[in-house]
């Protein structure tokens, strides 16, 4: 059936969940997420936490790449900055009561990430596209390199990594994965909502304008300097939050965790999910995290867990990762979000028309 | 020479540019295709020279025959070698290469045809180009660039030239010169020409046959003489008032009601 979308006033027309399907999907997912830790086993919770952490970062990259059209291949570095800032500030403010420490440390970590994001974003004023991609790539190599240096190892632990604190929120110590799941899920939903809000206002529209045609945005009074840097700051801030959660989630962090692969994974998840779409990161992260896992499980059950075959798993995962990326770019450039949209539209119109 | 039958063209699988367009260019004639921006004139030419795929466009239905051959699976470069040459909108010369290199690039069209490349003919036609042979093409003036674009077409020895808005952006007084050249190409070499224009007046001065397109469709066609006398053409394309009075109606006097009528339709 075709659902009527009658609106009585402008505010109804401007809502996010402006039709039934969307409401059903969103409330359904939230219900599922609430029940999830009750029936899921430890391993599923673990995976869900990892996905949540990655999701926040991908939402950030979506703001920059999907909406503002600035390519970054180095956002893993901001996750690193968020994670390391969390550890460094926690050690620095050792004297504070542990229950309020995260409320000081995490905003600081996000700010540091955002500020460094602005610095890395500076070339974006002069260079575009490819040059920016390589500039961010270069910046991320440099950040990782600096973290590894002996010079900073008293703070960063250098190449051998550093132990991380256990988060304590007003006396609630989150020392199990299930407790972390609650924190991560709540934050992931909030950040997603915040990103969506952004695009209901002038700020988000300005980003899209810059992506589509930057000179024409400029004559509308959108300062490229201000908004490009703002976009960098937001995306870096999101990655900083993701890093902070990562630091709390893992008991120890190593510089190697934040290498090129992480940066590429962020962009890949975005492409697979759907760039410039609210739910794109959500779908993308699910695919990027689950597909390798499924390959591993299916390969190991197919070969009876034989060690001779185990060494083919990683290459196969790698190849599939590449193929996924290429497939979506060539065949479905708007990602899974586009596929789900098509499905929703088909359901909406059924039985009248297809497509 | 060129027959386009009932073609549909869409870009990115969604935006439909042409809806069932047909036209024909007979051997040795000049045909003009008129229409406003966005009507699909350039798309028609690109469909005929098979350049659509480069821009994510595709011909959905219909056929295009050149010289009796369906061009569907012929690569653009092979089409050029078969004698169909497309002079692109905005001239599109290679602005970082010299004039001579531009002409050499066009000589790829002769590969495998056993024809010797004849630069002298071009230079005889356009002596200005010979003077500037070694210059970087980007520094030529607009008119000279248009000459170079024609020169490249001549090098390729085509049977049919598709010409996309040759008058675009040239001062009114140069436009006439350009169209004289078009006529010369047609009469001296017997080349068939399909010329896309917005400027109906000059196009009619050289063409034998004309098509008018709007919104991806042909809305009117006929001999140039017949078209010139068509009331709608006179009013929409030639700027002659409908009441047939002397002189033109001023835009200041256009009434609101008329405008509303049109956009509501």
């Amino acid at each position, binding site marked *: 059936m075709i659902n009527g979308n009658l609106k009585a006033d402008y505010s109804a027309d401007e809502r996010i969940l402006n039709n039934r399907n969307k409401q059903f999907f969103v409330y359904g997912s939230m219900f599922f997420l609430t029940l999830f830790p009750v029936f899921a086993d430890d391993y599923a919770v673990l995976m869900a936490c990892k996905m949540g952490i990655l999701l926040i970062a991908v939402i950030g990259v979506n703001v920059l790449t999907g909406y503002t059209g600035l390519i970054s291949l180095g956002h893993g570095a901001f996750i690193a900055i968020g994670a390391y800032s969390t550890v460094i500030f926690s050690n620095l403010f050792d004297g504070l009561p542990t229950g309020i420490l995260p409320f000081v440390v995490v905003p600081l970590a996000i700010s540091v990430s955002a500020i460094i994001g602005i610095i890395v974003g500076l070339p974006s004023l002069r260079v575009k596209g490819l040059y920016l991609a390589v500039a961010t790539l270069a910046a991320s190599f440099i950040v990782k390199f600096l973290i590894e240096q002996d010079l900073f190892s008293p703070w960063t632990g250098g190449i051998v990594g550093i132990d991380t604190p256990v988060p304590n929120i007003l006396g609630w110590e989150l020392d199990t994965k299930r407790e972390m799941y609650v924190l991560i899920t709540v934050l992931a939903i909030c950040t997603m909502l915040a990103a969506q809000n952004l695009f209901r206002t002038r700020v988000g529209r300005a980003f899209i304008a810059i992506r589509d045609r930057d000179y024409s945005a400029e004559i509308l009074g959108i300062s490229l300097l201000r908004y490009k840097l703002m976009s960098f700051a937001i995306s870096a801030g999101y990655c900083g939050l993701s890093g902070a959660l990562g630091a709390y989630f893992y008991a120890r962090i190593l510089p190697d965790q934040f290498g090129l692969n992480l940066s590429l994974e962020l962009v890949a998840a975005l492409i697979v999910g759907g760039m410039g779409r609210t739910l794109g990161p959500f779908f993308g992260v699910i695919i990027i995290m689950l597909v390798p896992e499924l390959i591993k499980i299916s390969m190991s059950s197919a070969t009876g867990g034989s060690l001779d075959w185990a060494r083919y798993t990683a290459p196969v995962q790698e190849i599939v990762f590449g193929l996924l990326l290429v497939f979506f770019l060539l065949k479905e450039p708007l990602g899974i979000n586009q596929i789900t949209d098509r499905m929703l539209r088909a359901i909406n119109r059924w039985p009248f028309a297809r497509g | 020479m060129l027959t386009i039958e009932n073609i549909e063209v869409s870009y990115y699988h969604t935006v439909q540019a042409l809806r069932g367009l047909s036209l024909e260019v007979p051997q040795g004639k000049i045909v003009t295709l008129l229409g*406003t921006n966005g009507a699909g004139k350039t798309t028609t030419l690109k469909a005929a020279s098979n350049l659509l795929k480069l821009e994510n466009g595709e011909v959905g239905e219909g056929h295009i025959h050149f010289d009796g051959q369906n061009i569907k699976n012929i690569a653009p470069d092979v089409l050029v070698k078969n004698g169909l040459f497309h002079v692109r909108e905005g001239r599109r010369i290679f602005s970082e290469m010299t004039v001579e290199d531009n002409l050499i690039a066009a000589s790829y069209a002769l590969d495998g045809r056993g024809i010797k490349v004849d630069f002298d003919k071009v230079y005889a036609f356009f002596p200005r180009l010979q003077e500037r042979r070694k210059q970087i093409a980007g520094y030529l003036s607009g008119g000279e660039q248009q000459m170079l674009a024609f020169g490249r077409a001549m090098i390729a020895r085509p049977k049919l030239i598709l010409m996309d808005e040759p008058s675009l952006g040239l001062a009114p007084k140069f436009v006439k010169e350009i169209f004289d050249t078009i006529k010369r190409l047609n009469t001296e070499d017997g080349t068939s020409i399909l010329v896309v224009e917005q400027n109906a007046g000059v196009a009619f001065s050289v063409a034998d046959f004309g098509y008018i397109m709007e919104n991806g469709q042909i809305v009117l066609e006929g001999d140039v003489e017949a078209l010139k006398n068509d009331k709608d053409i006179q009013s929409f394309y030639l700027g002659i008032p409908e009441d047939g009075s002397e002189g033109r109606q001023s835009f200041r006097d256009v009434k609101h009601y008329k405008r509303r009528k049109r956009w509501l339709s």
Partner: protein
Amino acid sequence: MLSVSDLHLSFGGIKALRGVNFEAKKGEITGVIGPNGAGKTSLFNAISGFYTPHKGRIHFNNADITGISPDKRASLGMARTFQNIALFRGMTVLDNIKLGGHTRLNTGLFSALKYFGSARKEELELRRDIEERVIDFLEIDHIRKYPITMLSYGLQKRVELARALAMRPSVLLLDEPVAGMNREETADMARFILDVQEQYGTTILLVEHDMHMVMDICSHIVVLNFGQQIASGTPTEVAKNPAVIEAYLGVAA
């Protein structure tokens, strides 16, 4: 209102503008004509701030704006349209027009992230303003939720004008607003331009090839050739000017 004095602009070795001088009078329509490559668009780009002239000054509302960036000029009340339509293809018509209201809004990053409260109020206010003042005025209500790519060329041009109007400009630069339109569409666009001038008293500066329209609706015309200003005056004065006939119009016109 808007004046340009002794403007020079060059790229590498090529001189795009060589000493252009004119003034667009308040509430009037001023036309700029000349062959392609004469520097018309370069002139527009210099006025709207994409190019920095290497000599000469641009004054707007009695303030020197020569050195300031395009976005600042926009917030001073300057709007423009482009020769090749520069709408945002990733957005609907409505969002495109909303962007015109950018400079008038104040929502900052943090209230945008929250949305509730001031940001929401401001957005709804903008929506009402646009619906009532722009969409209705230009008669594009039926397409407000369409993506740009689905619109015809003529409508796209109109949406671009709508976006410029949403900025509530005091001066409007139109770069070839009727290029490639047939006479009927041209007449419609001309009507809208005249309406804007009448209703809002907007100062309009216009680049156009269509000599008829320029002659009809402009009260003042500037003619450029090879970056030089070869004539300026009322339409009748310009049409008679021998230099203009020689360089541009030719005898046929």
